[in-house]
């Protein structure tokens, strides 16, 4: 057991320092402000089921779509050295497909599965479109995905023929809020399942190694038999899948789809989550865990601001201030300075001891 413990390598996890610190900062701030922020209670919802409530639950729940999209965004960032800004539009398209199929008949578990599969296929097709522009035509990811960013919501609108359709069914509510008998919000469970699936993919394929290799040195990757185009395409396919899942959750929460406002500006939060997660936005080494933690940090910040009764019109401004802090703290310049400071402090510690001894 001991030998195993000594093999644990801290150096592998230094990247997670920034997102963990960000979360810690928000936690400490809330502890000082109002410790009751963290209280978790149970209540009975309108279906008569006992469910968990409290700020922590709503943070984890509210960040679900962002966390899932951040997972895929991490892969695209690592492989292509750029970001996909069409994820919000893509998730809306996926949600729209989901709604369209469920509207066409009785909502059963079977039809939900069919709808989900169709929306996955649609999202992956659009992901493949983005991926082809980036890998085959070598267009910068942000420019390539600008296409879908611009027209995605219109496409979503067309799919449902122009209305703001609703899909109401207890099954949909179960996906968007609670499964009867389970006190944990369903989106949190879906995030856990997605994390598990992605974890298994990294464990049982070489996707992680290949993605990092392509992101760091594409020429060398090719000379070692890796097809960089394929890996970039795969990263966009995975992101498409993530968008499909996020889209279904978002639609199920409200039991309706609003093409204009659904997951609006989530692309920026997703990119931010990747950055807070300590991943290099220029590609290369990555940790999906970091991005997920980053997503929760962002949501924790938003929830805190609302808990402080900050008017919703001002929330974005306060958010920006905190983001500046986090981004500057994790910048290479500050990192270097802290490293220097740290070595200085270390050098002084024995000196102090000598003084004490005298």
């Amino acid at each position, binding site marked *: 057991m001991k030998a195993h413990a000594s093999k644990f*390598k801290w*150096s*592998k996890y230094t990247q997670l320092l920034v997102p963990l610190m960000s979360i810690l900062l928000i936690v400490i701030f809330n502890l000082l402000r109002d410790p009751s922020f963290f209280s978790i209670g149970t209540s009975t919802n309108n279906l008569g089921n006992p469910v968990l409530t409290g700020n922590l639950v709503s943070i984890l729940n509210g960040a679900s779509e962002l966390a899932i999209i951040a997972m895929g965004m991490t892969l695209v960032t690592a492989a292509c050295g750029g970001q996909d800004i069409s994820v919000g539009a893509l998730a809306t398209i996926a949600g729209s497909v989901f709604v369209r199929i469920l509207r066409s008949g009785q909502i059963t578990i079977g039809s939900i599965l069919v709808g989900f599969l169709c929306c996955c296929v649609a999202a992956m097709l659009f992901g493949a479109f983005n991926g082809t522009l980036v890998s085959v035509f070598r267009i910068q990811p942000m420019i390539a995905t600008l296409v879908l960013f611009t027209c995605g919501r219109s496409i979503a609108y067309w799919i449902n023929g122009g209305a703001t359709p609703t899909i109401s069914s207890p099954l949909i509510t179960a996906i968007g809020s609670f499964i009867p008998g389970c006190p944990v919000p369903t989106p949190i469970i879906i995030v856990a399942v997605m994390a598990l699936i992605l974890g298994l993919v990294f*464990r*049982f*394929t*070489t*996707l992680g*190694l*290949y993605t*990092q*290799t392509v992101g*760091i*040195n594409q*020429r*060398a*990757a*090719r*000379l*070692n*038999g*890796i*097809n960089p185009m394929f890996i970039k395409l795969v990263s966009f396919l995975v992101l498409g899948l993530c968008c499909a899942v996020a889209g279904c959750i978002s639609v199920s929460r409200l039991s309706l789809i609003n093409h204009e406002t659904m997951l609006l500006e989530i692309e920026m939060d997703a990119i931010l989550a990747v950055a807070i997660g300590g991943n290099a936005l220029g590609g*290369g*080494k990555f940790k999906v865990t970091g991005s997920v933690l980053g997503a929760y940090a962002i949501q924790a910040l938003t929830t805190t601001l609302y808990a402080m009764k900050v008017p919703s019109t001002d929330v974005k401004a306060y958010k920006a201030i905190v983001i500046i802090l986090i981004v500057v703290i994790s910048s290479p310049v500050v990192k270097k300075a802290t490293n220097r400071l740290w070595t200085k402090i270390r050098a002084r510690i024995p000196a102090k001891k000598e003084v004490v001894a005298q």
Partner: protein
Amino acid sequence: MQDKILLSMQGIGKSFPGVRALHNVDFTLRAGEIHALMGENGAGKSTLIKVLTGVYTKDAGSISIEGKEITIRSPQDAQKAGISTVYQEITLCPNLTVAENMFIGREKGVIVGWKKRYQRAGEILHSLNIPARPKQQLGSCSLAVQQMVAIARAVDMDCKVLILDEPTSSLDDKEVEMLFSLMRDLRSRGVGIIFVTHFLEQVYAVSDRITVLRNGELVGEYEVEHLPQVELVAKMMGKELQGLSDLKRDDNVDAFVGTPVYAAERLASTAGIAPFDFAISKGEINGFTGLLGSGRSESVRAIFGADRVGSGVVRMEGQRVKIGNPKQAMKHGIGYLPEDRKDDGIIADLSVRENILLALQVMKGFFHPLSNKEQEAFADEYIKALEIKTASSDTPIKSLSGGNQQKVILARWLLTHPKYLILDEPTRGIDVGTKTEIQRLVRKLAEEGMSVTFISSEIEEMLRTCSRLIVMRDRRIVGELRGTQLSQDNVMRTIAGGDE
């Protein structure tokens, strides 16, 4: 021939941290001459040019133009002194017109008289016989013409010294001839031209004098007619021509019979080498030799499928196979250590372990990742076997020294147990100790039955290691030496060509 000295560089020295790039180098350029600056990789050619053009500041020595000593601190200073450079890559703007390119960045006043300028541009182009119209977009001209426009721009700026840095490397024969006639024309107008190239034949076609550098020092200045090609090669490589019997080997070349491990007929790639035939037997070490740019690296890249393969028939152990990309080559048991370690070899941010495992992992396939235990075992085995000096197998490869990085790449390929291993400059830029270790390792691998192609810029190293040498010049194979033919003199003679 005019003998007025135009440019004189005396005792130039330049050091970078840990490297002495130039030491006490003299260089003299006369008005109305084409002066070739020759040297192998790392000889100091580009450093000397950069000192002259103000990109680097010299540590020692003096530069004077027409007898007047000048200080060059920036490229602007150089331009004011009448020194212009045309680089291998066109540094003009392809989306502007020819005339705009000739005058851009030279406006003195705010008001620009374009009508006058187009007229002036037309005159210059006409007088230099450059086939371009002033109002034509530069990007629509061929590379050669673009280069000539760059030269015309320099000439119009009253340049006395024109530096042409590898101007011919992307031109075809006809374009080269066009460029040469322009150079001769400028020479007759009294411009001094410094011509940097690695094409031997072009040097002899157009130059008057040759200055040879080696390891940052001056070897000498020669008039072209007094320096046969073979002696030029010897001077560049730092070997004196000796008697033929300096290195006799009794390798029995005929021992390598039977079906070759790898055989190619009329293999050609898009990298611009002439189609070539090549075969290697089991346990044989052969080498591709030639000067820098002779096509030796391109040849092995074609074998590995690293460049797009244009044509050719490839057989592995008698079976016809298709090798169109590195993955196919790897599947057929070929390994390739590239010349450019930094850009083509290492994955800088990844650990030593991941760098060692990469090729084997790719061969095992996407759905069969090596377990952590296997990874540790393989990495530790090869770190130990090749004596790679690293803090741990988790250290990023970028923090290792060059020699140790090279060993990691070597380990990467040895781990795949290739039948045929290609090593392009495995010993470049690494210390002598590691060098001999790698040479010994290559010998051992061949004895165990691996076929190896070994490329090095150092002739002795090639002679020590290889039992057969394929000699290349100007992107084609010009000879093959084996057994008793293997000597420095022979290699240099073959590289230089048969004009003795």
